[in-house]
């Protein structure tokens, strides 16, 4: 694993307004993520995991402190530049897959590349490669409705990985999957992490995911309570 910094968070505070004051979702967080990490925020609901991913993913901004993602200060990003950062360098994996039902597997995976204005031949190659990584080369023409939950999530991984992003953010990616499918998905992501050196950051409280993490950052009430390197 290389040590070049992908994400650097310092003194990060995130507050949400609520009746009579503010709710502090994240409180003075200092973290750094290097290239090729396979890390995750773990903790119970309401501990700040998703808020953390939102900020790293340029979907939200800190109330205080800094979050530098791929040399971009999230506080300073315009919505245009934030969209550009997500489009070029970030991949997202959601709990509910969010595949577009009217498009085929190929087209779902191709979608992020259209925003990058790649040529049709480049797109085709990239999509077929991504589907091969997740073992769905034979489902190119299938529609999401024809796939199992595990296969849908693999398509979602392929969609996140097709542009070879530097950072993938996954929020509870196995929440809707059974044990076998969860392991299959995690093995796939682990392999991609190793082969492509993509940094993966998870938000999860699923033990199946936690077992695969090589770095486990425990959050509780918006504070980092532990930051451990796990040796498998």
């Amino acid at each position, binding site marked *: 694993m290389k040590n070049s910094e992908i994400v650097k968070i310092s003194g990060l505070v995130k507050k949400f307004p609520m009746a009579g004051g503010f709710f502090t979702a994240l409180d003075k967080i200092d973290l750094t993520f290097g290239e090729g990490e396979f890390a995750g925020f773990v903790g119970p609901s309401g501990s700040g995991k998703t808020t953390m*991913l939102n900020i790293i993913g340029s*979907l939200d901004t800190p109330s205080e402190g800094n979050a530098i993602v791929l040399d971009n200060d999230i506080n300073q990003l315009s919505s245009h530049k934030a*969209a550009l950062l997500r489009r070029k360098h970030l991949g*997202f994996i959601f709990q*509910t897959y969010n595949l577009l039902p009217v498009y085929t597997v190929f087209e779902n995976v191709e979608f992020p590349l259209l925003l990058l204005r790649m040529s049709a031949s480049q797109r085709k190659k990239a999509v077929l490669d991504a589907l091969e990584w997740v073992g769905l080369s034979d489902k190119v023409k299938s529609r999401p409705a024809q796939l199992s939950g595990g296969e849908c999530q693999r398509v979602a991984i392929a969609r996140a990985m097709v542009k070879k992003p530097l950072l993938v953010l996954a929020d509870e990616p196995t929440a809707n999957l059974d044990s076998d499918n969860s392991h299959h998905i995690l093995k796939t992501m682990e392999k991609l992490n190793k082969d492509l050196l993509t940094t993966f950051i998870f938000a999860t409280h699923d033990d199946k995911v936690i077992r695969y993490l090589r770095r486990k950052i425990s959050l509780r009430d918006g504070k980092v309570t532990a930051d451990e390197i796990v040796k498998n």
Partner: protein
Amino acid sequence: MIRFLFKGLLRDRNRSLLPVLVVTVGVALTVLAHCYITGILRDSIEFTARYSSGHVKIMTRAYAENSDQVPNDLALLGVDELISNVQDDFPDMEFVQRINFGGLLDSPDKYGETKKQGIVSGIAVDLISENTKETERLNLAGALRKGRFPEKPDEVLLSDEFAEKLEVNPGDPVTLISSTMYGGMAVQNFVLAGTIEFGVEFMDRSGMIADITGIQNALDMQDACGEILGFLDNPRYNDEMAMQVEQTFNNKYADPDDQFSPVMSRLKNESLLSGFFEMVDMFSGIIIFVFILAMSIVLWNSGLIGGLRRYGEIGLRLAIGEEKGHIYRSMIGEAVLIGIVGSTIGTLIGLGFSYWLQEAGLDIGGIMKNSKMMMPSVFRANITPPAYYLGFIPGLFSVVLGTMLAGIGIYRRKTASLFKELET
């Protein structure tokens, strides 16, 4: 990207077929309503023009001032020369004599005594001269029920219902009791040539059509008539053209100091019609406006629902880096496409039905039975130039407006909650 989105649009029937159907139906109804209302208005005008007012009408000034009473004692004199002159002035128009008359119509029994009697309301038109177009203008051929058309000046047509009331059949004698244009009593025998159905309740109750020469003889109106009706070359009334003719005629012939000088009045200025024109214009405008407004609300709602249905897709597109403006523009592009396709199909369907109604018409005789208005019982649609673009107002603009309003949600959407939203 456009191709990709277009592919999705075609495949997602809820996004394409359904809105297109809604737009199509809305636009078709709008076009049909417009054509039908316009048709009813024009049919009413043409019916009135053919029967009583012409596109322009020449009367004496005194007759015009008392035209409600149909005062034949104030009729035009020297009409043959006058018609010849105005025909020279307006060679594209046709001018015809008309006499409206009333009185009693008596049907005698075999002893010559009164068998039945009824109040008659008649029109005298040129029925028997060689080049007359009056039978065609009054659509008498289609209205003939029994017998034949008059071939001599002393032959008349009665409404079928009136003939039954008088218990007369073609070939039977009838006697008109009226007054001459000089105030004397007029009693003239006629022969019933045939019966007709006017299709207008008021006329069917007591209507009579006689040849102008026969009535001129009966009412002592040689070379005189109550009105001269003028018809423009175009079968549809054109108020601008009629106004030009009216002004030219009145400048040349009308003398404000002579109550027997001829004056011309155009259809729209007829005392009973001027209000009708404005009322019908206003009501047709209101009906079409309300229709367009209602369709606009339906289609706007359809645009809103379309936008809301795609909440998840839009969230995903924002998350993977598509800009809000790009998504908004692509949604509006889709709405424009749906609006154009739906409006075009809807306009074609609306025009198709309107054309059918224009040719076949809709018979509303049953519900007009007790009407005293001179209105046609068969209404036809009328395709006018606005029918070709009117449907695009609700069809295109409303869908786009609905999508634009629905799309405002995209700008208000907080990207911070995308993870949460996309997990539900």
